[in-house]
């Protein structure tokens, strides 16, 4: 989800990612800082993201996270896996098998 957010919005800081996730989920997904930042760090450690300090639109310092090439590949892979999974579940629940 984090990867998808960054993919659609471009480089973003942590708060923006959380806000976006909250927004698209209609408020169902409220990420706590203790969950979000360790997750970002893990993705960074895995080389899927790169974080850098930069200045926001209203002149504040923030750490911006951007997808790396590996991250984009991973996202594509995840998406494919999900599509396949969803198709199977869909077929199952509709009794089409």
């Amino acid at each position, binding site marked *: 989800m984090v990867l998808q957010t960054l993919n659609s919005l471009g480089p973003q*800081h*942590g*708060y923006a990612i*959380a806000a976006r996730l909250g927004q698209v989920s209609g408020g169902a997904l*409220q990420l*706590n*800082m*203790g*969950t979000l*930042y*360790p997750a970002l*760090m*893990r993705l*960074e*450690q*895995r*080389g*899927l993201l790169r974080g850098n300090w930069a200045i926001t639109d209203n002149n*504040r*310092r*923030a*750490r911006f996270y951007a997808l790396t090439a*590996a991250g984009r590949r*991973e996202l594509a892979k995840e998406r494919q896996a999900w599509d396949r999974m969803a198709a199977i579940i869909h077929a199952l629940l509709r009794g089409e098998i």
Partner: protein
Amino acid sequence: MHVLREWLQRLRGTLGRSRQDQDLEEELRFHQELAAEEAPRQHQTPQDAARAARIRLGGVSQAMDALRDQRGLPWLADLPRDVRYAFRTLRKSPSFATVAILTLALGIGATTAIYSVVDTILLRPLPFADSDRLVRVVENVASPDGAGPPGQRDVTYQEFLEWRARTRTLADAFAVSMRETVVRTHDGAARLWGANVSPNTFMMLGTRPLLGTLAFSVDTDPNVVVLSFDTWQRLFHSARDAVGATLEFRADFNASFTPELEPPRLMTVIGVLPAAFELPIDPMDFYTPFVVSASQRSPHVTLIGRLREGMSRTAALDEANVIGNAIRPPRPANAAAMSVPRFDVQSLKEQTVAPLQGALRVLLAAVAAVLLIVCANVANLLLARGTTRRREIGLRFAIGASRGHVVRQILTECLVLALAGGMLGALVGAGGVTLVKHLTSVDAPGIFRLGFGTSVLPRGNEVGVDLRMFGIAFAIAAITSLAFGVLPAIHLSQTRSLQALGSRGGGTVRGESRIRAALAVAQLAMATVLLVGAGLLIHSFVKLTTIERGYDPANVLAFQLVFPPNYPLTRKTDTIEAILARLRAMPGVESAGFTRAGLLIGEAITVGTFVPPGRTVDDIRADPMRPLIRPVSPGYLTAVGVRVLDGREFEAIDATASMRVIVISRTVARRYFGAASPVGQVLDWHVGNGPATPMRVIGVIEDVRNETPDQEPNPEIFLHYRQLLSLQQRWGDSTQRQEQMSIGFLSFAIRTRGNPASAAHRVAGIVRSVDANAGIDAMIPMARLVASSVAGPRFYAVLLAVFAGVAGMLAAIGVYGVLAYAVIQRTREIGIRMALGAQRAQVLVNVLRDGILLAATGIVLGVAAAAAATRVLRTMLFGVTPLDPLTFGAVSVAFGCVAMLACYVPARRATRVDPMVALRSE
């Protein structure tokens, strides 16, 4: 792959090369501020908004904790702290730490020593190039009685050459056969034991010379020799110019290794081998290339080949049976059928170490049992200490430590203990290896080296203290720390914080005392198994050394004379007689004698057939008993302390008397003459086709165990060696055959009044003054030789006894610990009982009962396990069955007494409890 990368990054994080706390915190604060700024739409004040954001987003410090855990590897980061803490706790209880570390050092040291010995012998490749592909080719032959395992026979040199030409599975092969020779040295003569080898031998083994070359160029000069390091030192005093020097080789008699005697040859030394080199068959003094003339019968050789790369032993085995059956005549039609193929291809290494694999496994098992007992003991100590630490651990839980944290902390303490134990253990292990080397080295000079070897263990020369050992010690220490730490760690981590804080640190926990009792019982049982095993080996060793050998080795000095090449026979016999005369006149000498082949040399002959009165030659030839012939001089039987049962031994007068006389052993007397006295009776000696020679029996002696004491005595007939020589001359035997049969190894035995070793110098002086050119081989007190002949059983008995002793002591300490601890915990209860009028005796019985129950359970379990386990010792026992009731009984009673003592001490302490003090202690 991503996950691997994450771990690497986290490792970097641990090492401090990642984002700092400040950086992380700034990011979180930024997040919080943004959240608070957006909030005022719903909240009145900024403070309210900030508070709501904090509630929604969680606290900065909690997020920081989670981030820090994600950044690095927390357990790794905490390790230095855990280790520091472990050191502090251990320093706080020095007696506990000392006992635990010493116990561990003992266990780890013993295991390290034995493991490194086993590793050297069984696991390390032989010290030759591509040694894992070296194989030995032999022919299996059915055992004589057809029932036993098949025996093995080597191929001949001619067959070896044929084999080498035909084989496709072996890249190459070399041949070895033993030979002996006498050489002239700067101070007389020396007998050397060496090998004929095919010229490619050293090249195939990848051996490099210390000096000169190892390449035999047989075509240009076959008279060349390569010396072993020892021989080089002995004959040339390590002079570098030994290469190029010459030695005159002359076989002075045929030690049955080659079918015919070789003529004397002048040999040029071309090279010297490094000190560590030892052919995997026997330690040799020298190596010469095969020179087999067409007129000679081809000698038997050990055929060793190297498998072609990628070739399996099975393929080589199939091929060996094709080649072997093609070049060797078929087996006789009446030969017993065998379940194995006729020709066998054995791995050289397996073949070298096979005889000892069983014994080494026993040692490994024993040392593993010691290590387990050590672990159980330390675990017990930790549990006992854990009870007093319960409050501390409760406190840790109360302030937020997780179970994982506590387990980790305790395991770290164990690791620190084990590593300290390991460090000491490595030293103990080095001592142990030195002890093993000392115990296994066999004191067998000269000729005896062939039979006894230089070590109880094959490859004993490779055993030694090395750096690998320290690696092994620490590996064992690490494994050990888990073994003894896991139980206390799990147990302590189940502490409930409130309960622990509330308790006064004195309450008993039932589950725990049950675990500790079980550990003590396990220790006792294992120690009992070891003690029974050691008991059996010791019992067997005592039997071996006290068995009636038929001779008395105390105060006997033995040596072999070596004559220089080309001495005529008469000069040899004159010299023998002159030496005997001088020895008998030497102060402090009771008697001195000469024989063809002395005790423990392991060589004897049978010649012709002795026929008692009233029986026929055919009758006796069908008899499976064939007495050995032992030519001796007068005084020999007395010198070695053989008991004369009837009649007398040889006297000087017999040499020239016309009647030929013999002394027979008890078995021969009983078989040929029954209960009647054989003295004065005559045996007819049929040799060859000539007329029989009447031999009058002048004495009967006790049966002698001429070889190692575990071998049954042979029936023997003793002759006067000079009578035998004159007989042989009458028969027209060649000089060589006369020497072979009558004087052979030229063995002397001297019985002294005092210490025989102190006479050695004077004896050597006498030999030199009689004939300055004669040499002496293997001068050694007979008692030391006899000790060498049982070096193997002694090694196993001593080693197992040490292990069993340590195990027994630790187990007793274990029982003591459990009981002593129980008494401390029950102090209040005992105090109340005594206050209510219990007698001291009742209290004593009460505590003792618990201990005895523990001890009895352990010992009974141990005896049962031992009964199942001692079967593996069968081949190592002599005169004792694996279920020997005496050993089992003695060990259980003795160990039971020790356990009782271990129980008695704490029980007595219980009786000294002062009721008032006990009650007030709460």
